[in-house]
């Protein structure tokens, strides 16, 4: 195959079969586009069903692709190896859950352009799958941009909401800036090795270790550092995490749920391929940087979460902290560590989407109302929702026997046996800190009286005057003083006379949201049962990556 030039390579039917899952998602995108034209206003919720069917069919096709022999497709641009299929499975699961949460959320938040929303969500999933399956820097870049472009628009989709617009703008500028660094890094790596294929780069560096020390060394090192910057930005590692909380808070919550998981899956798999595999021989050089970044990310991410009063923002910061645990696996750089990375991503997907899912059901119509006060007494207002949230939070906190516990366990175990004992210990200590802020939400749900007034779930349309005053009270919140404690209490007091009328309004959960929650809870709790086959698959996939 190496003898062939990319210009003379002719794709075969087998190549197309290996990207079957991606093709199915693409077909679902087209079906959604056409269905959007056909469906009348008010029935757009069915678009989600199209997407869910696409995700399920694509997920089934993974099994078939897994049975094919060989993995490389399209002149080694893309691969359908175990790691790619595992990541695709997690991405499709996340996509399905996010789609199930979407119809009622979009209706409640009055987000227009529903058709575009579903199309872009699926396209970003397609980009993630592409990036996770990429076996060439080009495909990594194209997949990355594909997912990012779709997410920029999704973040800014609620056109009347300034916070979303701001989130979209910040994400767009910062992410493009980081992409430029990544691309420059890729260019220099290409210059140093003469290859863009991930295995080719690894092969070249393995064969020309000596030559590197004189000629192309600086090129390689500068390229490596710039690529690291780009990847660290995408996985929101400290100090490149600044965009994460703002974007995650401003974006519509379904989008936040999906991107917090999907982007991580894609970026971490690509990071593992590029650094752990292609730049394997340079491990001694990049490992200290990842080490430092992982420590910083775990500590700063957890520390920043501690003082958050808004659950959505707290979850955003916690995703930074989780990136730190995943970086531990990258720093360890063994097959077992890569397998634990995959397992962690799977567990993280279900528990994080679940936690965001509950948050979006608690959220008010104006896109606010996700502070701790809004979760007060949820255990009595909606016991099922509170129980689900408790499961997700316990899992995120790493309490056995949930999926999150197993995931942390695997990662830290891999680090322990992979000679990264200090990292594992720092990680365990950092996750003790994590317990505090996750359990504070459980605490609020079960042991705090519902705050009067901070809890109107649905402002009745019939009373525009009331709604207007409520909105004004919320507007006042925006200009509130900086201290979050003062803000919450003083504004709660402010809001009481207006909104206490509405406290009796119950949170309504649509059938599809309930289904998504049930799936997420079941997977979070039952992952302990199929941990063994899942882990075995991840191990096999990871060792095949190294071979």
């Amino acid at each position, binding site marked *: 195959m190496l003898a062939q030039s990319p*210009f*003379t390579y*002719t*794709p075969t039917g087998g190549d197309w079969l290996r990207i079957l899952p991606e093709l199915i998602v*693409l077909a679902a995108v*087209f079906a959604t*586009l*056409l269905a*959007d*034209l056909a469906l009348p206003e008010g029935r757009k919720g069915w678009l989600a069903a199209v997407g869910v069917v696409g995700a399920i069919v694509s997920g089934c096709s993974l099994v078939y692709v897994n049975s094919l022999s060989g993995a490389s497709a399209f002149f080694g641009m893309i691969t359908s190896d175990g790691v790619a299929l595992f990541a695709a499975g997690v991405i499709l699961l996340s996509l399905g859950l996010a789609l199930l949460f979407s119809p009622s959320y979009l209706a409640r938040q009055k987000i227009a352009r529903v*058709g575009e929303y579903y199309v872009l969500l699926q396209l970003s999933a397609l980009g993630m799958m592409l990036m996770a399956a990429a076996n060439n820097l080009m495909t990594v870049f194209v997949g990355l941009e594909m997912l990012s472009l779709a997410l920029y628009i999704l973040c800014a989709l609620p056109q009347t909401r300034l916070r979303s617009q701001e989130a979209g703008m910040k994400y767009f500028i910062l992410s493009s800036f980081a992409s430029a660094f990544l691309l420059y890094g890729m260019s220099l790596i290409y210059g140093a090795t003469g290859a863009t294929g991930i295995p080719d780069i690894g092969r070249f560096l393995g064969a020309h270790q000596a030559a590197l020390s*004189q*000629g192309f060394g*600086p*090129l390689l090192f500068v390229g490596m550092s710039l690529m690291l910057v780009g990847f660290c930005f995408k996985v929101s590692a400290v100090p490149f995490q600044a965009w994460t909380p703002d974007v995650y808070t401003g974006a519509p919550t379904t989008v936040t749920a999906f991107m917090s998981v999907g982007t991580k899956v894609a970026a971490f798999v690509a990071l593992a391929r590029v650094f752990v595999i292609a730049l394997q021989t340079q491990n001694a050089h990049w490992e200290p940087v990842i080490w430092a970044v992982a420590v910083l990310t775990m500590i700063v991410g957890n520390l920043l979460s501690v003082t958050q009063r808004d659950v959505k923002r707290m979850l955003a910061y916690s995703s930074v902290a989780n990136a730190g645990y995943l970086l531990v696996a990258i720093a360890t750089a063994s097959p077992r560590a890569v397998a634990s990375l995959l397992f962690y991503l799977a567990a993280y997907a279900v528990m994080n989407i679940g936690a965001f899912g509950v948050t979006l059901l608690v959220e008010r119509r104006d896109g606010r109302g996700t502070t701790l006060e809004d979760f007060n007494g949820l255990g009595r207002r909606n016991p099922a929702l509170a129980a689900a949230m408790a499961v997700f939070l316990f899992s995120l906190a790493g309490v056995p026997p949930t999926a999150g516990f197993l995931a942390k366990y695997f990662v830290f175990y891999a680090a322990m046996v992979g000679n990264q004992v200090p990292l594992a210990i720092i990680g365990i200590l950092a996750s003790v800190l994590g317990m505090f802020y996750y359990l504070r939400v459980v605490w609020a749900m079960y042991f705090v009286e519902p705050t009067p007034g901070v809890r109107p779930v649905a402002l009745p349309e019939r009373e525009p005057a009331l709604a207007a005053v409520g909105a004004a009270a919320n507007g006042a919140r925006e200009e509130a003083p900086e201290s979050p404690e003062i803000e919450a209490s003083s504004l709660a007091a402010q809001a009481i006379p207006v909104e206490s009328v509405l406290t009796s309004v119950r949170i309504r959960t649509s059938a599809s949201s309930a289904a998504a929650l049930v799936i997420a809870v079941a997977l979070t709790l039952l992952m302990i049962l199929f941990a063994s086959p899942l882990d075995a698959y991840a191990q096999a996939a990871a060792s095949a990556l190294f071979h």
Partner: protein
Amino acid sequence: MPESLPALILLGLALLFGAATIGATFVLGPKRPTPEKLAPYECGIEEIEAPRQRFPVKYLVTGMLFIIFDVEAASVLPLAILMRRLQGLGFIELLVFALILAVPFIYIWRKGAFSWE
């Protein structure tokens, strides 16, 4: 190339130093913007209308759509070069490519993106 690399690195470092200096002033320098300071012209005459008010959004939308389909055309170019070698397969690929372009095109058309009003 190797002998010029130190110079390259030096250049890079110099630029970085410049960037860091400018950046530091941004972080450290006091910023007290007043409406007067932020006004577009400081020659004493109040602005008659907001300078950025007239923004022809319609042109922009059309422009954006043009860029998309224009760039897609650029991707067809390599296919054209290889057309002879690829034979029938190339034709099928071209059709698929056109189909991928056509569906969104129909979509934005039906959504009314091309209507001027």
